[in-house]
C-alpha cells in the first residue's frame, strides 16, 4: 500500500462530534454521511478535500464518541489517509476497520505544512515530504492491522470465512 497526495492540516483534539455531528447519525448510507463530513469544524472542507486528500493533524485525532460514521464520512468524502501526532483509540480502530489508512507520527506532523505533497508507505513507516525534499520514518502499522486496513474488516472477515 502506497499513498500519494496533498496535505490538509488540522489541529489537536478534533472530535468525532465535529467530524460528523450527531444529527446525521440517522444516515446509514456512506455517501450521504460523506456530504456532512467535518461540518462541525470546517465548512470549506469539501472544497479543500478535492485537492488535498491527506489529513495531517496534531494530538488526539478522533476523540469522543465511538461513532464509526466519523471515519466512514471522511473516507467517502475522499480522504485517502490520516497522519496524526496521536489518535484516540476507538477512532484509530474504527478507521482501520473501515479501510481508511491511519498512521501515528508523533512530532513529525509539525514538519508537514498545508498543501505539502507527501508519499506514504504504512507498511514501512516511510513518509516523504516531496515538496520539502525530506523523509521521515515513523512506526509502521503492524502486519495484522495492515491486512485489515487494506480491505476493511467486513471484507477481511468475509474472505477468511470462505477459506
Amino acid at each position, binding site marked *: 500500500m502506497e499513498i500519494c497526495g496533498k496535505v490538509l492540516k488540522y489541529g*489537536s*483534539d478534533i*472530535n468525532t*462530534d*465535529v467530524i460528523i*455531528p*450527531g*444529527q*446525521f*447519525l*440517522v*444516515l*446509514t448510507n456512506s455517501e450521504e454521511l460523506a456530504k456532512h463530513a467535518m461540518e*462541525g*469544524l470546517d465548512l470549506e472542507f469539501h472544497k479543500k478535500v478535492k485537492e488535498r486528500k491527506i489529513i495531517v493533524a496534531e*494530538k*488526539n485525532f478522533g*476523540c*469522543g*464518541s*465511538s*461513532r*464509526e*460514521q466519523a471515519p466512514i464520512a471522511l473516507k467517502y468524502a475522499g480522504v485517502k489517509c490520516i497522519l496524526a501526532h*496521536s*489518535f*484516540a*483509540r*476507538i477512532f484509530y*480502530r*474504527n478507521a482501520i*476497520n*473501515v479501510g481508511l489508512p491511519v498512521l501515528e507520527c508523533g512530532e513529525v506532523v509539525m514538519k508537514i505544512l498545508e498543501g505539502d505533497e507527501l508519499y506514504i508507505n504504512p507498511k514501512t513507516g516511510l513518509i516523504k515530504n516531496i515538496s520539502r525534499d525530506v523523509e521521515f520514518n515513523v512506526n509502521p502499522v*503492524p502486519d*495484522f492491522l495492515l491486512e485489515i486496513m487494506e480491505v*476493511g*474488516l*467486513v471484507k477481511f*472477515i*468475509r474472505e477468511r*470465512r*470462505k477459506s
Partner: protein
Amino acid sequence: MNIIEKILAKASDRRDVNPGEIIEANIDKVMANDITAPLAVKAFKEMGGKKVWDKERIILVLDHLVPANRDRSAELHMLLRKFVREQKIKHFYDVGRGGVCHQIMMENHVKPGEVIVGGDSHTCTYGAIGSFATGIGSTEVASVFLTGKLWFKVPKTINIVIEGKLKQPSAPKDIILYIIGQFRADGATYMGIKFSGETIKDISVDGRMTLCNMVVEMGAKNGIIEPDDKTALYLKERGFTSPNFIKDDVDAKYYKTVYYDASEVEPMVACPFTVDNVKPVSEVDKVEIDQAVIGSCTNGRLEDLRLAAQIFRNKRVKEGVRVLIIPASQKVYMDAMNEGLLETFIKAGALICNPCCGPCYGGHLGLLAAEEVCISTTNRNFVGRMGHPKAKIYLASPATVASSALTGRISVPR
C-alpha cells in the same frame, strides 16, 4: 498482575499477560444501541453472517432516538426489531422497556470480572463493579456478533489513588472533572485507569459509575474499581450472586500511580468547548444560562436525582431558564416517582423527559439555538454537541446544575 491484566488473561485463556501484548479475548457480553447497532447489523450481513454466536450475550438498547423523532429514526428502530426477531436476540430494550444503554447494562447484565464491549464510547462505565469494559465501533460489534471474540492490546494501567474526605457539596462528578482537567483530553490514551484509595470505598456504585464513565474523556481504554462490599450489595439488590471477585495481586504493577486529595476538590465545571477545560465553579459564576439538563449515562441515576430534588424542594426555577430532567432508565424513573422526586421537579417548573440520551446526543430533543448556554450533568461539551455549533455547554455535577437552574447563572451548590 493487576485487576485488568488478570481479567484479560482469564478471558484469553492465558496464565499471564503483559502490557503491550496483543491478545484475543472471549467476550462475555456485547451491547449496541440505536445509532451503532444498525451499522453493525449491516456489517454482520455483509460479512456473510447467518447466525449470531450467542443470542443470549447480545444486548440491544434503543436510547438515542427514543421515541423516534422522525421517519429515519423509526426506520433504524424497525431494522433492529427485525434483526432481534430473526436472530431471536434475548435481551432487547424497546421504547418504554429500558432507558440509556449503560444504565440498562448496569441494572441487568454486567458482572464483575467480565469482558464487555459496547458500541458506545461510554461502555467504560461498567468498570464501576470490576468488569473490563470498553467502547468499540459498529464493525467490531458485528465481528463480535459473529465470533464472540475480539483482539485487544493489554493496556498500561494508571493507578489513581484518591484519599481524603470529599467535602460537601462536591460530588464524584467534581472529582472526575478535576482529574480530567489535570490529565487533559489525551493524558490516558490507550491506557487502563484503576481508581483506588479510601475515598473510593466511601463512594456509592452510582458515583463510581460517574467516575468510570468519564475516563474516555482523557482517552483511556477502560476505568475499573476493585469490587468490594458495596459491589456485593449492588449485585444482591439486582438478584445476582457475587462471584469470587478478581482483584489486584499483591505484587501488581502499574505504569504509574498518581495521588489526589478529595478534600481539596471543590465543585468543578468543564467549560466550552473541551471536557478538559476545567475550572472551579467559583471562577465562572457570572455566566448566565438558558437551559439546565440533569440526566445521561454520567449522572441520570437515582442518587443524582435525589441530590437535585433536595435543591429544588419548595423552590422555583429562575424565570427564563428551562430545566430538563431525564431519568437514565425506566427503573430510575419509577424509583424517583415512588420517592416523590418527580413531584418536586414538576412543582419547581422542570420538564421531566422520558429515559433516553436526551440533548447529549445532539440530534433528538432539548437542543440549543446559537449563542444559548446550557449547564448539564452530561459528559461532552464539544462544538455542536447539543445542537447549534454556537451554543455553549458547561458540564457539572447534579447539585451544581440544579443550583444554577434556581439562580439563572452558574452557581456553587447551596
